[in-house]
């Protein structure tokens, strides 16, 4: 299916796609450091295994950014 990930169209070769599966396919190293938004709605972490992504959905991976610069 074709979905938009972080603003760019991508073809994902899966008939069914959950948020968990997408995080896996996209090799997101540390899912704890990402918040997932699908079509303007934030997906609850507890729903990652169930939340289905459909054709033309817009998915944003929002990364947690703190300081990163330590004393």
């Amino acid at each position, binding site marked *: 299916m074709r979905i938009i990930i972080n603003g760019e169209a991508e073809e994902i070769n899966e008939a069914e796609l959950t948020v968990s599966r997408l995080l896996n396919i996209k090799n997101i190293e540390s899912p704890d*450091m990402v*918040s997932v938004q699908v079509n303007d709605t*934030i997906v609850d972490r507890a729903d990652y295994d169930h939340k289905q992504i459909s054709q033309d959905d817009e998915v944003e991976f929002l*990364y*947690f950014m*703190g*300081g*990163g610069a*330590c*004393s």
Partner: protein
Amino acid sequence: MRDFSTEELDRYSRHILLSDVGVEGQEKLLSARVLIIGAGGLGCPAALYLAAAGVGKIGIVDNDVVEISNLQRQIAHFTYDIGRSKVESARDKMLQINPGLNIETYQLFLQAANIREIIRDYDFVIDGTDNFPTKFLVNDACVMENIPLSHGGILRFDGQTMTIVPGESSCYRCSFRSPPPPDAVPTCSQAGVLGAIAGMLGTIQAAEALKFITGAGSLLTNTLLTFNAKTMAFRKINLKKQDDCPVCGSKPTITELTDAEQTTCDLKQLKKDGNYVAE
């Protein structure tokens, strides 16, 4: 309208020339109050630009002292400041730029018990903190006190910022929900940051504060601006106020502040690293 002295007209002439700012906008800046949380990588450039802009009252919160490793990006602190309190060091530089300002320093750890009282005296808050529990605390306190806020975060070559107008636009918790588990957060030695990124982001935050005060342009509300300095790709991600947000949603579950999200162990570690509040 207030009478500007000749010196003030000269000092602020490049603002006054802007049709979106003008004498009226400069007058608003001179009577505005902005709080900067963290006198580190983000807070330093923000503090210098707000001082230069003539923001009448600027508060700055940080409990740390200047260390040599700060100087790569915390641009208000100079080599001779090593060992001095960051808020005092920043205050000196701000007053050297613009001696007439009222600079309030808070050398303390921000906590649930003191944050609301501190932010209440300000019109706008700039978050320049480096750790997630404090970022969430700042967000929640600003939502509860109805005070607009600029969120900022940096990591390696990346930066992100959003402006939050409580009640009107999405908040930090709408999108990020709760602090990530401490063991998932990159440690200091793994992460690092390109110093100039802090300046890029801190000055965007200062510009948002100046825009909010003067009413010029449109703010980064309902928007997460992200950039990567390796490619210099900037993106605006549309955000929406989430009805199920734990703090600003229709049925909030967070109705008072707690320090619970900051475990004792983290606090010790952060204190040891000397960077509890300052990015």
